[in-house]
């Protein structure tokens, strides 16, 4: 059974009416894989791929506003480096053409490339309910635990927003050049005021921020002027990288050992901070 609303109001009404056994689907690149693997056998779907305006991209007052149905192919063209590079690293062209940011957040995989990039960009996600209206949730509060989020069963992810003036960088380590699940990925954002945000993928149950590493860079001070906007000494970078290695909490799995992932947190944080510094 397919419900295919064409506008968001209708979609939200259906979401609130239908039970949780009706699965929200956007690009289907996670949902269909789960079905193929027999993990889930949903009987009915709420398909958002026809909702008008689902894939709108706006930039208003220094804020990017992306509809939940924005695809990786669309994000790949944005002048937001970490997000664009993360998007380009996803799957192959077919997946990038249908896979969406709402789906990436909805799946909440620790290896979700879009999620990791957005976390470094200080993004918020809009969760909407037909009656309760919408609420904006910061990504660090959105990801609760392994593949669990703050999304209620009667809500939809409608939009994502983040400041447009961050500088950002991205790197993903995988086993091959495309269709490549990250072994470790890292995104770092820097606000115009010089505050760093470091996000790591595949090193914990959810996309995580390396708070200790950020603290090394940002200090305790909230005084923007105090921050090292200007110059990051190698020694500071090294301490931040080390902190990232220590706070990462990866597991061993068939893709990689925890030790390698920890070591790569250090390598990537060091490399990306230098890249931000040296341009």
């Amino acid at each position: 059974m397919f419900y295919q609303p064409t506008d968001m109001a209708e979609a939200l009404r259906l979401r609130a009416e239908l039970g949780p056994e009706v699965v929200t689907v956007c690009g289907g690149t996670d949902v269909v894989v789960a079905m193929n693997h027999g993990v889930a056998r949903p009987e009915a779907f709420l398909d958002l791929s026809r909702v008008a305006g689902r894939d709108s991209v706006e930039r208003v007052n220094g804020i990017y506003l992306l509809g939940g149905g924005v695809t990786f192919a669309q994000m790949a063209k944005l002048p937001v480096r970490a997000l664009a590079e993360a998007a380009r690293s996803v799957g192959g062209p077919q997946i990038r053409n249908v896979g969406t940011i709402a789906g990436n957040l909805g799946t909440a995989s620790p290896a979700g490339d879009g999620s990791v990039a957005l976390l470094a960009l200080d993004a918020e996600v809009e969760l909407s309910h037909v009656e309760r209206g919408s609420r904006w949730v910061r990504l660090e509060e959105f990801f609760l635990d392994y593949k669990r989020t703050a999304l209620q069963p009667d809500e939809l992810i409608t939009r994502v927003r983040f400041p447009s003036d961050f500088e950002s960088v991205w790197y993903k380590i995988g086993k091959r050049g495309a269709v490549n699940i990250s072994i470790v990925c890292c995104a770092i954002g820097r606000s115009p005021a010089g505050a760093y945000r470091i996000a790591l993928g595949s090193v914990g149950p959810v996309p995580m921020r390396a708070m200790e590493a950020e603290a090394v860079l940002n200090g305790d001070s909230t005084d923007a002027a105090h921050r090292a906007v200007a110059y990051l000494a190698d020694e500071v970078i090294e301490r931040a990288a080390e902190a990232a290695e220590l706070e990462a909490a990866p597991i061993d799995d068939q893709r990689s050992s925890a030790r390698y992932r920890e070591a790569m947190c250090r390598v990537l944080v060091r490399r990306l901070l230098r890249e931000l510094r040296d341009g």
Partner: protein
Amino acid sequence: MSGRAFGTQTPAAPPREKEHVLPTEAPITPSPFAEKVRGPVGRSCDKIDGVERVTGTKLYGADLIAREADLHAKVVRSEHAHAEVVSIDTKEALRVDGVLAVLTAEDVKGTNRHGLIRRDHPVLAKDRVRYRGDAVAIVVAKTEQAAAAGRDAVKVEYRVLPTVESIEQAMAPGAPHLQPGGNVMGGRRIRKGDADSALADSHVVVSETFRTQTVDHAFLDVEAGVARWDGELLTIRVSGQWVHEEARLVALALGLPVERVRIIQPAAGGAFGGREDISIQIYVGLAALRFAGKTVALRYDRAESMRARHKRHPMRIEYAMGADREGRLTAAKVAIYSDEGAYASTGIAVCRKMSSHATGPYRVPHVRVDVFGVHTNNNPTGAMRGFGATQIAIAYEGMMDRLAAKLGVDRVEFRRANLIRPGDAVTTGQVVPSPTAVECLEAVLRQYGSKSMPSEPLPTHLRRGWGVSVICFGMGYGDGFPDASRARVRIGADGCVEVYSGIVDVGQGAENVIAQVAAEEMGVGLEHTRVITADTHMTPESGSCSATRSTFFAGNAVRLAAGELKEKLLDAAGELLCVHPNELEFRGEEIRGRFDEGLCCSLGELVAAARKRGYELEAEALFKPRTICEDFETGQSPRAFITYMFGAHVSQVLVDVETGEVRVERHVACHDVGRAINPEAVRGQITGGVVQGIGMALMEEVVYRGGRILNPGFTDYILPTVRDVPPVECVVLESNDPLGPYGAKGVGEPPLIGAVPAVLSAIYDATGKAPATLPCNPERVWGMLTGS
């Protein structure tokens, strides 16, 4: 700039389009002694069934199911790597709506065993299971869903036995015996000269332990097909690699006379050795026998295909090699332990391929090799492209790099100085008919260009390097094993040349080769030939599509048959036209008088005339060259293989020394194929082999834990993508084999064999560390570089 060399991002512009033209343009180096050809031999031609394949009109196993299936079967498999089967309870399964039957070992009327060399693999396990893919029962139902539900409802009670996970565990004292003779299945050896004292006397000696991984064939077209029993004949349409042997194995296992089993090959989407061991043929045949007049279907999904099928042998290779002060190889001492998994499959032949290729294309006076095949509770291992010659090449080429470094000499010079030349012998003592190792090496270096490493400065974490490999490969089964091909050629009612051959086209283009050979020999155009292959009741036995033998064997058989048919045709034409046959000659699709243009008849007319008198214009021929069994004590034979192929590769890589990521930037491959009958197909085989070789070198690996495959799908069984393989630069060398059809040798396996060590050699060159464990995925390379 930022050192973003690694390919996890898509560049904005489409890459490499211009370069792509280059490699395919590389000219063929023809042999000056090559036989003259006038027809299609030596010209690239499109795949005969290419249009049907890409437009969906050619039927694969799964297409047959969609069109014809009446009933569906599913296989109940062991949940344990090693266990006794205590009981099988089918009651609940039989209650599932749509389930018609559950078949167990009791229902198998024949030997209930199969196996290409040793028949040790139960079709349905009766009292013991030895790996997680072992089949226990077959469920037959009206629909595929019902069959799956029935499969899940079969209750098998097991008594779990300890799992033997590795070669080391299997050989440890007190290990449970997996086969009656113990865990060492068998082995082979080489004793040539006195390797121990030669090593002791050597100026330098290097030793290393190499470990190769389990590799899956990963052909796209997973096992699928149909069977039907009409009360007289069991017809099975499933893709394999040797239809006649499959018929014998099915007949034996199910207790039928072989004449009652007909195997017809549907279109196959790849094989790589993965269809050599029988797959679903016996299961679907067994199910069909129970339901006469119904077409029964069986197919695997990717996960079942990976769990059930045999794999490439993972090996531990302990290699010591010495050289004298002048940089000449003195001796090699090699011990190889090969994980055979639960059943023998072709393992013993793989052991022998390892021993007979232990020193590759190099002159080594003293050689001692011991190969042991060892049973474990992992998947059975068997044929895969290279058949053991792949793994051993990683070792001997790895040794060449290490020895050159220790001697402080250039690795290319070192190879040049030790490669076999005319009159030299390989490991088995056989003096190779046309040793072109040096020519391949020179050609590959020429194409690569001596100064072609880009010299732009790299960021500190990136290193560039290039590597080289030279390999050899004995063609055909060899070792005195009967190796034969038959073919029949006839003129059809429309005057077309019809070729009947049992050889299987698994997608590589064997059908093209035999069509080209027939057309060339008969002097007709390719459009006047028709090829009928791989049907046990229509086509004469041609042996397997394996061992890089199809072109050589099937090609020769077709050529001989066509030659005979030509004589018959001239005879018949002479009779028809009332002249001596010597007065006549072939002109395309006609026979004409040599001197009298007025004498003329078409092939069609000849056939019509012959048929009127009650006979067919056809000829059948057998090609059966002999090899000589290797001495069991010494491994020596003057003719272990009919001929040898050679190849050389250069690979250029970029290594991120901080993350361990490796990217192949360029790959050049030169192969001596004797004669390229269809050059574009030859380049296709070389390119594909390199792709698979890069996969094996860098990423592919089946991971087991406790006999369970952790990555039975393409999410985590990592195959190379188009972003991981540069356009392969193919250099085709022709040496004109004296026995090959028009001088052809073959090309299937060697390109993969050469690719793997070249990539490893390049990593060594880039980083100063020589890899010994495969695959060189980022974590392993990082571990090697940091000592972690």
